[in-house]
């Protein structure tokens, strides 16, 4: 399964190049996590979401949320430098970190990804999502940003996995559509735009596509576990998260492939739900 899997000097199995850079940065040595990262990277390459070797591709930021601490959860797998420019997460407020990922307090916990979609993705090519381990219906936000001062006003890109038993979301829109119905906020949730007229939401590998015309790209950093509302956190989540990604627009097939490899990743780590 590993592209470079072999036994070197009789004892050492090699890692993918991207995994090795991530391990060097994060200091993670747990072999189960390492094996899971190697398979994940290989699967991402096979799916065309990342290039072979190192660096980013369609996926610009990917947080596998492994290692059990803020110091390991912060790293972007595709560019694991400890800098804002590399989209390293910075944590604020109450967050619990452990082997199951990171859990917001629901009062004041969130992270700044420093990923500002304005200039980093196209108005008609943007996707983001996460893997949640908590089923709760509330008004919190899982990821996103919202600017009420742009033209058109209320420019927004975000996800609410389950609010009043609907998934709310937007990609470069000026409103938030309550579709599809959602009575379970666990597992993979994602939203994607690959053209100017449609958005696709994916909940645990079920795609639903709607007519939604792109409006503008919010000029704000994407927050996770809350919404960046005009440069302030809003709608703090209390869900437990075990994965986040931010990317160019992904097709329905790519979203399903991403769901599959993330579920496999969580299963290997014993934290799938």
């Amino acid at each position: 399964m590993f592209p470079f899997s072999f036994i070197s000097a009789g004892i050492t199995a090699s890692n993918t190049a991207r995994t090795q850079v991530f391990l060097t940065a994060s200091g993670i040595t747990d072999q189960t996590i390492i094996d899971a990262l190697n398979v994940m990277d290989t699967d991402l390459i096979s799916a065309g979401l990342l290039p072979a070797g190192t660096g980013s591709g369609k996926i610009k930021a990917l947080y596998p949320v492994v290692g059990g601490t803020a110091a390991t959860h912060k790293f972007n797998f595709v560019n694991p430098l400890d800098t804002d420019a590399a989209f390293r997460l910075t944590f604020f407020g109450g967050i619990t970190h452990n082997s199951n990922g990171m859990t917001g307090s629901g009062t004041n916990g969130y992270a700044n990804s420093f990923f500002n979609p304005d200039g980093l993705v196209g108005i008609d090519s943007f996707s983001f999502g996460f893997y949640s381990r908590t089923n709760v219906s509330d008004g919190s936000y899982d990821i996103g940003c919202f600017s009420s001062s742009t033209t058109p006003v209320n420019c927004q890109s975000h996800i609410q996995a389950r609010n009043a038993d609907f998934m709310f979301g937007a990609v470069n829109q000026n409103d938030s559509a309550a579709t599809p119905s959602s009575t379970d906020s666990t597992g993979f949730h994602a939203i994607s735009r690959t053209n100017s007229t449609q958005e696709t939401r994916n909940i645990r590998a079920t795609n639903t596509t709607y007519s939604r015309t792109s409006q503008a790209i919010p000029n704000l950093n994407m927050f996770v576990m809350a919404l960046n509302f005009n440069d302030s956190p809003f709608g703090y989540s209390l869900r437990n998260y075990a994965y986040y990604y931010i990317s160019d627009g992904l097709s329905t097939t790519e979203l399903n492939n991403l769901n599959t490899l993330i579920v496999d990743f969580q299963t290997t780590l014993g934290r799938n739900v």
Partner: protein
Amino acid sequence: MKVGILTLEQKNEIAGQLYAEDSYFNPIQDVNDNWVISTQEMEQCVVEEFMWVKDLPLIDYEPKPTPPI
């Protein structure tokens, strides 16, 4: 849900400061304009100069009303 209540001076002292590795305090105001922090920040604080947060009085968290967005 409980939160720790801060005086204005205490809020100013910890705002923007680390309470543990890679984790910053985020004092917020509740519906009564009390400055508060989460119990997670209180429990996980390992910075010597801020260990007093572990002894903050606890109150029930009452969030500000959601602004229309």
